[in-house]
């Protein structure tokens, strides 16, 4: 990585990254893949987020589902750890709570493959500053 020397550098990088994410999220082209974020904060990890992340990666690979699984910080739903956010192309991201292996398998099977929701999804209950 080259150093960011100017404001322009930063803007270019930002736009490049934003475009990349948009591509992923808009879901009607090459990057037509499922994105999963696993909340990996202390309490997430303490309640098994790491195992879930590994499980998801393996399962998705085995089922040949194109997906990116990344970590993220605390989503705030400590009562429902581990939590994951799943973004299926073309759809709003959905947060699932209390994800154990069984539930993770269910999410892949029902939601990712069959667009079927599973009980206990966590509605986003906060406003962001994005707009």
């Amino acid at each position, binding site marked *: 990585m080259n150093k960011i020397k100017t404001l322009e550098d930063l803007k270019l990088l930002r736009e490049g990254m934003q475009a990349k994410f948009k591509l992923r999220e808009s879901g009607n082209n090459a990057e037509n893949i499922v994105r999963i974020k696993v909340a990996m904060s*202390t*309490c997430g*990890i*303490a*309640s098994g987020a790491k195992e879930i992340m590994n499980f998801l990666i393996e399962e998705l690979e085995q089922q040949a589902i194109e997906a990116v699984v990344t970590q993220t910080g605390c989503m705030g739903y*400590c*009562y*429902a*750890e581990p939590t994951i956010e799943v973004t299926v192309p073309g759809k709003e991201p959905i947060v699932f709570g209390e994800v154990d292996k069984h539930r993770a398998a269910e999410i892949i099977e029902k939601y990712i493959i069959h667009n079927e929701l599973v009980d206990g999804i966590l509605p986003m209950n906060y406003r962001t500053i994005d707009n």
Partner: protein
Amino acid sequence: MPKIKLSQRTNEIIREICASFDNSEGELINVLHETQHKLGYLPAEVQELIANELNMSVAKVYGVVTFYSFFNMIPQGEFPISVCMGTACYVRGAEQILHEIKRQLNIEVGQSTPDGKFSLNCLRCVGACGLAPVVMVGEKVYGRVAPQQVRKIIAEYQESTVKQEKHEM
């Protein structure tokens, strides 16, 4: 306190740590962290050597070690048990858990079992309040613990003999 003699290697380790912080008195806490990380605890002889290396009084080193609850002067058990005593855990029954562990292991807080297997400590909030009450064994976090589960948790380790990867003094 029984006197121990530090091995040549331990001496070197401590000297290296001190040197990596420029033997600077102001870095004492970092040095202690690093040393405890490597050796598991900070017995008197280790503190004396550190004082010597950092060119400060051993009384001051001891003053710092005894001020911060993170530093230990006695070896921890093979499986250190920590009970979170944060408020969230407290209102969800951490005291009963602690009581039960003390009863099961027959030790008080700050002590180790005679076989050196377990040591018991309290800590203030690991930040897993969503899982209260929380007990940690080594690095592993047990959430939503009930007094009846304590026996089972301890039993998990009773048989096991995972040697800690700590440097022998």
